């Protein structure tokens, strides 16, 4: 690279505003917010094993938001559905689709641990992906676009997406079996998985993962071209 082009690049680097820099700041904010949220989750979880803790009229708990679909009545059951105010729903009231905050009444048993474990695993994957994204944008903001490591990070991001889809599907299968709500129920983390009959569509997350894989290939080819360009004297 001769002096002239280096000068031009430096001028571009010192530009006051660029989309990449803006996105980088956004991702940094999101990253620290996620750490805060995770810390809050852990604190709430450890403060009280089961439903949460009470302070005056307000009840704190660790709600896990799921889409719940219940078709048929069932008798005694582990699940109790609680709204924001702490009021219970019976099964009959939330018939059909809807977002429900699932809270666990009474003792904390193995099932509940598995629930939290699933959330922690999914959270971990999201964290890993966010970390990759943060590092990627750090590099992009420096003006280093086509490098092998960038392609690798995008590919890792794609694998995160695939892992989220696969694990969600597995958790859905497990919890569906364990909750043993009557036939026709479904608990879904997103995507198009439905256990009522069987309907599995292409989840948008999976599709996004495929797009990212393609992008990673483009970046890898770009890195190859750049190295060739740099080694042309």
């Amino acid at each position, binding site marked *: 690279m*001769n002096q002239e082009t280096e000068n031009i690049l430096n001028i571009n680097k010192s530009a006051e505003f660029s989309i990449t820099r803006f996105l980088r700041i956004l991702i940094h904010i999101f990253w620290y917010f996620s750490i805060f949220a995770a810390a809050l989750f852990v604190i709430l979880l450890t403060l009280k094993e089961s439903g949460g803790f009470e302070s005056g009229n307000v009840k704190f708990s660790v709600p896990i938001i799921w889409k719940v679909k219940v078709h048929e009545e069932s008798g005694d059951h582990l699940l109790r559905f609680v709204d924001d105010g702490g009021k219970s729903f019976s099964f009959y009231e939330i018939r059909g689709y809807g977002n429900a905050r699932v809270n666990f009444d009474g003792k904390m048993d193995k099932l509940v641990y598995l629930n939290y474990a699933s959330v922690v695993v999914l959270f971990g994957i999201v964290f890993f992906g966010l970390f990759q994204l943060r590092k990627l944008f750090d590099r992009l903001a420096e003006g280093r676009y086509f490098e092998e490591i960038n392609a690798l990070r995008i590919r890792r991001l794609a694998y995160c997406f695939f892992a989220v889809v696969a694990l969600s599907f597995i958790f859905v299968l497990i919890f569906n079996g364990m909750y043993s709500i009557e036939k026709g129920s479904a608990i879904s983390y997103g995507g198009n998985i439905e256990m009522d009959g069987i309907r599995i569509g292409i989840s948008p997350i999976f599709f996004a993962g495929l797009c990212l894989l393609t992008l990673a290939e483009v970046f890898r080819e770009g890195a190859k071209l750049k*190295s*060739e360009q740099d*080694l*042309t*004297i």
Partner: protein
Amino acid sequence: MPIKVNLDRMMLERQVKLTELADRVGITLANLSILKTGKAKAVRFSTLEALCRELRCQPSDLLEYVSDDEFEEISLL
């Protein structure tokens, strides 16, 4: 790549130092070093022209084709 760069031999013959040549040819020392050690993947005609002008030689004095086996032996040395 079985193209050998004989830049060092030519520089020895003409008694030119690397920094001096870089100055005269107008490319950076790092790039000339890449060329000299044989890490370069391609050479621009303009660079080749400047090198030949400053070293008063032909392109064939700078570049040489060797067979793959021979090249491996050279790079092992």
